[in-house]
């Protein structure tokens, strides 16, 4: 295969090339194409072959002969389409070159016997064309060769074959045969001036163009053949089991005949009449309307033809019956210009036409009963048809009495069920009893009688025909060379002879009254009515049989029935081939329903073996079972039906796989879904591999069976809390779709709410555990059971926000465990609702008591990824201020609040659980969202830190504040050295100084050692602000100096002596180094040190008397000294700054004023340079000090605070890690706290590490 495909591609490629090179001759091209065609796939082959056909038929017909055989070789191709192409080719070729008929007709003949009906049909179509071609060709040739004769004989033979196909058992083949017959009749009859000939067939041959003296073609023979074809067509039409399509086709053909050959008008109209009165009983209702519509259409067409003049009465009666209004009919009737036109073909019609009615009749009928004598009204001028004659005969007999008798008698023969055709055609008789109506009735009866082979008119006509035939027959026999025709003719005349025998007898017998006639009449009709009620008559016979035959024993009966049924079962294939499988199915179903037990199960097993192939049987059986149940109403039981349905459904479930929705079909088409069937459906739904199928079936049930809709819905709803995830989610998605339906909405909602209401109970109801019912006892709620109650509700929530209030109601009543679970599961749906949901906003606004946590959770979910909307903020603010002053509400919307609101809330916020505090800070600092920019904090990081320092210590314990500031320091990315510098600067400028100022300074310094210079300035400025007046700050000040020595020496020297003394009191170890530092000054520098200072420095010797003085003095000094600041700054700082290494910098005699902000940068840079070497010295002591230091920081604060804190303080002094535990308990601050100090110390260490790298 692959090779072939490859070949085709390459050859196509090749052929493309060929197209471009025009040099190639047509012949070569054809060869090329034919070579390709042999190898490629069907579709491509067709394309290629069509190209060839175009080339050799149209482009260069001279090649036709050369390549004929090559193309014809494809007639054995596997593909139907290719074979059909060959037929088409034969047609085209023969039309182009008639001589080819000689060679090709046999091929066509062969193809006409093809196994595929589609090929046969195509062959018939082609023969339809070629018949004319062949005839014309022969007529043209004056001297006909043997070959031609043989060819024509074959064509004639084929024509007969096609006519024979009118009895084919394939509908389509029959249809084609009808059309062939139509053309044949037209060809084999003369065209007359009043013929309506289509323009394109203007040149076609017809009987009138055939010379009577042709050497081979016999005019008469052809004429006869045409007539016999018409006979066959007419006969075909009255077949009682004709299909609607064949009938339609035939009706159309007749109309064409009437129009193109008006000489047949009478036959056609009669055929229409007969048909109208005797629509085949096999037609379904809609088919009847289709056929009637067609009949109407064709009648109108015929009516429009001028030659219909003589039949206008009959046609309009028919049309009226078919529901056309009189005015419409008149509109279609041509003006009667030439009423005599019909005379033109009178000579031809005479005798010959009428003869054709004979075969319509079943000849043997007339033997049985002598027909009534014909009224002696010799149809002198115009020979009337048999129907006309019979109608005339009947007319006087139709008096009220006779008609009444007729009606009564025919009652007996009425079918049990009104046939569809009657139902469709019945219109109340309006003009009953009028002459016109009686005439119409007579004619109707005459039509029936004639078609049944009865009536005086018929006899008369036959007699008349006979005479003609005698002459014709003789002539035909003598002149015809065609053996076929001869055989045909003799057969016809033979049949005729029989009828003749009966006819005279009929005339002789005396006129009997209506009675015998009536007895006779219905019988021929019976065959048509019989098929309508086969059941009734069939059953009767069975009973008769039972009378005659010896009864079997029970066992025998059982055995026989078993065997019979088995045989029917096993004959599946054979019967299917015969096309009667529907009968078998019906039979089986009906039989089996009448028996109990075993046979049913056998049949069910049989069905299940091949459910797909035997679904028809399954349905049939099911319906019969149901019927059985209905017929036993009201006492009937559904058990048997239920068993059947249940077995089928469960059987299907056990099958490994079925895609074709048989299950769905079975469920949906079952008349009743019983409980057990519903269980099977539920099993389907619970089967993970079938869940979709099951549920979509269930959905169909819910939507299409409204009477028990809620029961089905309930099944689906129950599945929504199924333990299997797939089942559950599928059920939920189905329910969600159904939730859109107004009438189901309530039910679904109620169910969801009921389930949710379970959460109020102390224990989960047994319902949740499926079948096991006594689990009620004490099994506690689990996460799983809680979820089960909520699945449906939660999936509805985003669709109907109103439901959220119900949740709040349930939530308030539920126990803590459930609350926790609820909080966990609502995230998805709440997020789905979005913060703009009015109901959600309402919930926030109302916030039922007990649902605070729920509301908070909702708020968190909503603001997790996006900043809060103003509406939401507004609701929360309201709630907070007016109803529930729980600061936690504010957290989710904190970024939506005003700055001062945040600052107000801060004291409360930082008292919360550390984790929560951390989150608050994350939100405020924008460190929470990765997007960052989306939420704009109302506070800048600096403002936040400042706000923390300014918290009134009466509102919040210092400890919390410290922790909060620590959190800030933890965010190093946010709190850069710049930010901290600004914070320090601003804090320092406040009055009074914030308690935590120095702590923050020290911490900043720890984090960013390069801030040392800046800190020195701060310290200096603090001196100006008389820092010693604030004990806490003063303590920190000293500590800071201690940590920053030796840089801080210069600062210390600026202190007034009493304060300096106080420093030494606190840390005596500072004195000696400071003194040494001073000693290292140049004498000039030393001169600047006031004596009082020196006195303090040289401590032990002197007493600290002059304390009050310097305190007074100092501010002045400072003020004086402030003046030269600019000067000092203008001096190149670098020169002086690096000196601290060298112990005596001269310049530093004067105290350092705080540098303006602009200089910070510069200074920091400078300091960076100087820090590293010094760091190495300082590092270790600092580290060691750290713990002490931290504890020291806290101790002094303690007394200021409330009792509780001070209690802790001493404990926390000792070792920071130990302090954590008690704190955790009292302040309910878990986990995080333990980390905090560690972090801090780690920070310090790492800071140190980093700086050492510097």
């Amino acid at each position, binding site marked *: 295969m692959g090779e072939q495909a490859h070949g085709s591609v390459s050859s196509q490629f090749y052929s493309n090339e060929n197209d471009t090179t025009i040099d190639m001759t047509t012949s070569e091209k054809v060869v090329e194409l034919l070579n390709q065609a042999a190898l490629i796939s069907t579709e491509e082959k067709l394309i290629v072959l069509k190209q060839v056909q175009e080339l050799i038929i149209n482009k260069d017909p001279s090649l036709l002969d050369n390549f004929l055989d090559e193309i014809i070789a494809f007639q054995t191709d596997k593909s139907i389409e290719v074979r059909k192409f060959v037929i088409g080719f034969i047609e085209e070729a023969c039309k182009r070159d008639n001589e080819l008929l000689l060679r090709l007709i046999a091929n066509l003949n062969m193809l006409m016997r093809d196994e595929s009906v589609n090929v046969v*049909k195509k062959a018939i179509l082609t023969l339809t064309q070629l018949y004319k071609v062949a005839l014309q060709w022969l007529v043209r040739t004056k001297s006909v060769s043997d070959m031609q004769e043989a060819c024509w004989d074959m064509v004639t033979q084929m024509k007969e074959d096609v006519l024979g196909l009118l009895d084919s058992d394939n509908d389509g083949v029959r*249809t084609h045969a009808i059309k062939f017959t139509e053309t044949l009749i037209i060809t084999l009859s003369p065209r007359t001036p009043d013929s309506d000939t289509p323009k394109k067939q203007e040149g076609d041959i017809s009987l009138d163009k055939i010379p009577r003296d042709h050497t081979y073609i016999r005019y008469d023979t052809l004429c006869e053949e045409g007539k016999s074809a018409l006979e066959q067509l007419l006969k075909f039409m009255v077949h009682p089991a004709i299909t609607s399509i064949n009938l339609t086709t035939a009706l159309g053909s007749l109309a*064409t005949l009437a129009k193109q050959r008006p000489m047949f008008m009478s036959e056609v109209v009669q055929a229409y009449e007969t048909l109208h009165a005797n629509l085949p009983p096999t037609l379904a209702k809609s*088919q009847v309307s289709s056929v009637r519509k*067609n009949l109407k259409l064709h009648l109108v067409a015929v009516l429009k033809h001028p030659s219909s003049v003589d039949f206008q009465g009959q046609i309009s009666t028919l049309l009226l019956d078919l529901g056309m209004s009189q005015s419409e009919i008149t509109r279609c009737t041509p003006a009667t210009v030439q009423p005599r036109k019909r005379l033109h073909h009178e000579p031809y019609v005479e005798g010959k036409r009428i003869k054709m009615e004979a075969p319509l009749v079943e000849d043997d009928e007339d033997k049985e009963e002598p027909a009534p004598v014909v009224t002696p009204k010799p149809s002198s001028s115009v020979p009337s048809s048999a129907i006309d004659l019979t109608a005339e005969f009947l007319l006087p007999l139709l008096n009220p009495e006779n008609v009444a008798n007729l009606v009564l008698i025919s009652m007996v023969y009425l079918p049990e069920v009104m046939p569809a055709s009657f139902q469709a055609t019945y219109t109340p008789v309006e003009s009953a009893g009028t002459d016109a109506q009686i005439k119409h009735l007579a004619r109707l009866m005459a039509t029936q009688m004639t078609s049944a082979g009865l009536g005086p008119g018929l006899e008369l006509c036959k007699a008349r025909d006979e005479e003609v035939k005698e002459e014709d027959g003789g002539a035909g026999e003598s002149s015809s060379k065609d053996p076929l025709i001869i055989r045909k003719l003799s057969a016809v005349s033979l049949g005729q002879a029989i009828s003749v025998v009966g006819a005279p007898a009929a005339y002789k017998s005396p006129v009997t009254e209506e009675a015998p006639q009536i007895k006779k009449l219905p019988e021929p009709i019976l065959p048509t009515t019989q098929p309508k009620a086969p059941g009734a008559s069939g059953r009767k016979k069975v009973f008769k049989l039972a009378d005659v035959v010896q009864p079997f024993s029970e066992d025998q009966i059982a055995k026989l029935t078993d065997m019979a049924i088995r045989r029917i079962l096993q004959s599946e294939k054979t019967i299917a081939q015969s096309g009667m499988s529907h009968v078998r199915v019906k039979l089986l179903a009906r039989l089996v329903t009448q028996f109990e037990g075993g046979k049913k199960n056998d049949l069910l097993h049989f069905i299940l073996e091949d459910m797909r192939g035997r679904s028809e049987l399954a349905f049939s059986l099911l319906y019969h079972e149901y019927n059985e149940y209905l017929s036993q109403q009201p006492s009937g039981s559904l058990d048997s039906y239920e068993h059947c349905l249940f077995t089928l459904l469960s059987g299907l479930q056990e099958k490994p796989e079925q895609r074709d929705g048989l299950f769905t079909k079975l469920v949906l088409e079952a008349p009743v879904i019983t409980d057990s069937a519903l269980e099977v459906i539920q099993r389907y739904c619970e089967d993970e591999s079938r869940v979709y199928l099951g549920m979509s079936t269930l959905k169909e049930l819910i939507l299409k069976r409204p009477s028990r809709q809620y029961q089905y819905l309930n099944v689906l709803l129950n599945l929504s809390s199924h333990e299997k995830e797939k089942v559950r989610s599928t059920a939920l998605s189905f329910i969600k779709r159904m939730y859109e339906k107004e009438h189901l909405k309530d039910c679904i909602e109620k169910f969801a709410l009921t389930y949710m209401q379970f959460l109020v109970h102390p224990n989960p109801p047994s319902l949740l555990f499926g079948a096991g019912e006594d689990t009620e006892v004490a099994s506690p709620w689990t996460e799983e059971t809680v979820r089960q109650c909520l699945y449906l509700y939660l999936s509805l929530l985003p669709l109907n926000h109103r439901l959220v209030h119900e949740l709040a109601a349930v939530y308030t009543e539920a126990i803590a465990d459930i609350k926790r679970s609820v909080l966990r599961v609502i995230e998805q749906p709440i997020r789905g609702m979005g913060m703009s949901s009015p109901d959600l906003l309402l919930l926030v606004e109302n916030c039922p008591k007990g649902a605070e946590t729920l509301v908070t959770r909702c708020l968190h979910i909503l603001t997790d990824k996006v900043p809060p909307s103003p509406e939401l903020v507004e609701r929360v603010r309201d709630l907070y201020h007016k109803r529930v002053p729980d600061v936690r509400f504010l957290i989710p919307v904190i970024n939506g609040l005003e700055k001062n609101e945040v600052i107000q809330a801060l004291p409360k916020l930082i008292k919360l659980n550390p984790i929560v505090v951390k989150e608050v800070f994350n939100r405020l600092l924008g460190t929470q969202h990765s997007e960052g920019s989306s939420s704009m904090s109302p506070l800048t990081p600096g403002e936040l830190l400042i706000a923390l320092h300014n918290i009134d210590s009466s509102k919040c314990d210092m400890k919390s504040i410290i922790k909060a500031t620590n959190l800030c320091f933890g965010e190093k990315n946010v709190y850069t050295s710049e930010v901290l510098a600004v914070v320090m600067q601003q804090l320092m400028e406040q009055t009074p100084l914030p308690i935590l100022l120095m702590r923050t300074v020290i911490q900043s310094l720890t984090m960013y050692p390069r801030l040392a210079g800046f800190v020195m300035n701060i310290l200096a400025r603090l001196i100006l602000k008389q820092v010693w007046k604030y004990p806490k700050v003063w303590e920190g000040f000293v500590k800071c100096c201690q940590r920053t020595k030796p840089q801080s020496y210069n600062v210390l020297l600026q202190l007034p002596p009493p304060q300096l003394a106080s420093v030494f009191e606190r840390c005596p170890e500072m004195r000696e180094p400071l003194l040494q530092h001073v000693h290292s000054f140049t004498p000039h520098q030393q001169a600047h040190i006031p004596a009082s200072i020196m006195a303090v420095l040289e401590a032990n010797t002197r007493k600290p008397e002059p304390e009050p003085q310097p305190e007074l003095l100092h501010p002045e000094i400072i003020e004086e000294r402030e003046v030269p600041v600019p000067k000092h700054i203008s001096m190149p700082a670098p020169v002086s700054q690096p000196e601290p290494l060298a112990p005596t910098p001269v310049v530093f005699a004067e105290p350092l004023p705080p540098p303006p902000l602009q200089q910070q940068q510069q200074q920091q840079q400078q300091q960076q340079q100087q820090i590293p070497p010094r760091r190495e010295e300082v590092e270790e002591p600092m580290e060691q000090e750290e713990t002490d230091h931290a504890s020291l920081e806290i101790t002094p604060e303690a007394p200021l605070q409330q009792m509780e804190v001070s209690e802790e303080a001493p404990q926390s002094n000792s070792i920071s890690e130990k302090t954590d535990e008690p704190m955790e308990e009292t302040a309910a601050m878990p986990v995080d706290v333990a980390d905090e100090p560690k972090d801090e110390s780690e920070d310090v260490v790492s800071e140190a590490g980093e700086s050492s790298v510097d």
Partner: protein
Amino acid sequence: MPADPLRVAVVCSSNQNRSMEAHNILSKRGFDVRSFGTGTHVKLPGPAPDKPNIYDFKTTYEQMYNDLVRKDKELYTQNGILHMLDRNKRIKTRPERFQSCREQFDLVITCEERVYDQVLEDLNSREQETFQPVHVINVDIQDNHEEATLGAFLICELCQCIQHTDDMENEIDELLQEFEEKSHRPFLHTVCFY
């Protein structure tokens, strides 16, 4: 049969709603399908029942669309006409009249009885040449959007079933009967010849 795809024509009155809906679905399912109207004009609903918008078959869907937008965009958006035209113009340029089409089909499906009659009348008035049969089936569909959609699916199912028959002409009768039962609507069915 399955070898060569069914050539299908779907016909309604104006070649706008029902036939186009079916055209749309059928072509999506891979059928060789064309759609037509049988009316003398193309009629679309107007501001009042007695004031339809009338176009000839030469007007493109695009032009109609623009015309209606100009006349009353809101009305025609609201009653779905613009949406329909928009769909149509993506299928083909303009409506086509069945009576003017000479192409041969295997199956012609009409959407109401009046149209069926017109199709039959037209097919029967043509001169027969090849005698190639064409089956004409009427499926009654009300002329509104919902019914058109439902009808289109029914038509599509019908076509698919017909396409899958081994011998269409032999089985179509039974098939239609089955469909009648299933869909609870009668089908008119006949055969004409080209």
